[in-house]
């Protein structure tokens, strides 16, 4: 699946997007974040702000970390929006 990052999350990771294949035990948004944090120090640092991180699965906001990611094509991580 494709991961896309925005705003200071993109800057902290030094990465706008990446292709990943999570292991089988990673079935939800929350488990994905934990797994990503275990993979890199940069991501672990991002997760210090875990509470404010917003997630979109296939371009739709997800408000529950228990949301399954099975079959998702694109998962986005970003801070609270400040448009308008």
């Amino acid at each position, binding site marked *: 699946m494709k991961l896309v990052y925005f*705003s200071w999350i993109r800057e902290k990771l030094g990465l706008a997007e990446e292709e990943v294949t999570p292991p089988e035990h990673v079935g939800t948004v929350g488990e994905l974040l934990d797994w990503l944090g275990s993979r890199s120090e940069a991501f672990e640092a991002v997760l210090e702000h875990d509470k404010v991180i917003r997630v979109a699965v296939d371009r739709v906001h997800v408000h529950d970390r228990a949301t399954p990611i099975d079959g998702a094509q694109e998962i*986005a991580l970003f801070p*609270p929006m400040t*448009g*308008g």
Partner: protein
Amino acid sequence: MSKPATGDKSATGKPDIRIQREDFDPAAEIERLTSGRRDIGAVVTFTGLCRDEDGRLAALELEHYPGMAEEEIARIAEEAMARWPLTGLTAIHRHGRIEPGDNIVLVVAASSHRQAAFEAASFVMDFLKTRAPFWKKEHPLDGSSGEWVEARSEDDSSAARWKG
């Protein structure tokens, strides 16, 4: 107008959403929603502009999530169309570098009735602020490296007004 009018009766019900780098023209957008129609009593526009924050800012950089930005604003706009009797609804959000005094966002709501037009435009702006995937970074005038603008809790409360 030479281009096909979005304001055709046949087009009622489909909001017009655009994400673009270029500026927009509120008068042309009003015209698109009202041209050739005789059943519209009220048009409300909201234009959001870049402020210099008491002279502190040289510009804002607006980052967005291409694809999702259009889709999310379309979802918000369709909720507004379902909730109020609108004859037309347009939302345009710019991205890229925007300087103080320049336009950022435009919402135009047209209806037979003025409260519907006012409320729909206000509703779209409230949710656009809290749900549309855009992020502002400040470019200070003093050349220091800018900060990302933090989300404001007032914006969440404004959006919460429309619940239920």
